[in-house]
């Protein structure tokens, strides 16, 4: 456990006109059970108080600490230094707006995405705060929960070649969220409503199946399976719709 770690960190402060993007190396002795969260905090405390990075929960829940660690987007608080070589390179997540150093603004993008896909239960039922909650089959609840575990860290977008090339692409995170609402019996939206949102090149048909998302998601969400499910569902819906449209015209 007496490794000396070299941590190369991307430095740039867009607020400061004199700041130029560059890499800076910090040296730190590795301690037992060290995570990148601990390492970065020690660097900030002991070596450079101006270092910017985001953290909140340090337990893989808030999704704040996403960054590119030796080439792969991941959560810093979940990454143990013992699993990395002694040379570690940290870059901010691409795709999102840079705030400074390793800190990026994921919030604005996620807010827009959630508004765009209307990420809430659509129901015509009046909400009655007094009434007992509707019961749901346990297995189904678990299936929905599985997709709801997303912490909005943005790693899947940073790892997605499509999202990197095309800014309007919704990404696996949004598609996964739609899959979650499709499963939910309380949401009254129909296939055609979902098709309007994701049945296009910004949505499921833009996805090139590179599986960067699947392979980096720190919460191990079943993104690949959701993407396949949605493409089939939306693809077959389009065919059915095409047939219906033909019938109507003749």
């Amino acid at each position: 456990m007496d490794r000396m770690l070299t941590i190369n960190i991307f430095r740039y402060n867009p607020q400061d006109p004199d700041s130029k993007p560059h890499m800076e190396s910090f040296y730190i002795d590795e301690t037992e059970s060290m995570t990148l969260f601990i390492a970065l905090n020690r660097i900030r405390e002991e070596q450079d108080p101006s270092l910017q990075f985001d953290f909140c929960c340090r337990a893989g829940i808030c999704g704040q600490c996403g960054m590119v660690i030796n080439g792969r987007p991941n959560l810093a608080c979940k990454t143990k230094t013992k699993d990395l070589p002694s040379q570690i390179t940290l870059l901010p997540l691409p795709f999102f707006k840079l705030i400074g150093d390793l800190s990026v603004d994921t919030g604005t993008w996620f807010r827009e995405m959630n508004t765009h896909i209307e990420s809430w239960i659509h129901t015509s039922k009046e909400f009655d705060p007094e009434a007992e909650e509707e019961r749901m089959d346990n297995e189904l609840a678990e299936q929905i929960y599985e997709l709801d575990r997303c912490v909005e860290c943005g790693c899947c977008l940073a790892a997605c070649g499509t999202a990197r090339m095309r800014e309007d692409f919704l990404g696996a995170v949004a598609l996964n969220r739609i899959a979650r609402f499709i499963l939910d019996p309380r949401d009254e939206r129909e296939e055609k409503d979902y098709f309007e949102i994701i049945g296009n090149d910004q949505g499921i048909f833009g996805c090139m199946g590179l599986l960067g998302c699947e392979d980096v998601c720190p919460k191990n969400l079943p993104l690949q399976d959701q993407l396949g499910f949605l493409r089939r569902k939306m693809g077959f819906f389009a065919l059915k719709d095409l047939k219906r449209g033909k019938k109507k015209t003749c």
Partner: protein
Amino acid sequence: MWSDTTMHVQSSTRTPAVLDWLEVLSGIGLVLFIMGHSLFVASVIFGASTFNGMAGFFENTGLAQVGGPIIGLVFLLHFVLAARKIPFRAAQQSVIWKHARMMHHEDTWLWLIQAVTGMLILLMGSIHMWVLLNDLPITAEKSVALLYAGTWLWFYLFFLLFVAMHVAIGVYRAGVKWGYIRRENRARMKKYLYIFAGVLVAIDLVSLIRFYFLSV
């Protein structure tokens, strides 16, 4: 705001889905064609007369004269459809290149290989079809003569490699995109597809070697 959709708006929103279907279906058609083509060429293993017999059958029935140009059109269609996703603009190219280098991620590289081989196949495939279909009938003798002329041997060596790679990666990625290759069987399917690519290369290589040493 909600309004009833009109036919016109509906058809335009279905376009990406339809194009995606056409891309995968034309791809499947071409994979079947390539497999059939490899088997046809492999008939040379049993000698020049078997090969000539097969070629004669395709020509006498008009399959070569009609099928050839149709396959050419399907190739073109498949390319145009797939090209919607290929980065042609320099900015996008540099982003995806940096991205692939950053990620060290196998599937991202596979896609890049597929895009590059796709473009090469379009070019080399056109040359191949032009040369062969312009000089019908196809015979083992002419094929041998071609292989000994200039750099044609190298041309075909690379061509068969590119085709095998493109076909195997394409099948894998179509399976992933349409949800038939899932998380639980992905590693296994990938292995099968590498084997599939290997078999395709092997068959083509054996045919090529047989041509090369054919005494005609």
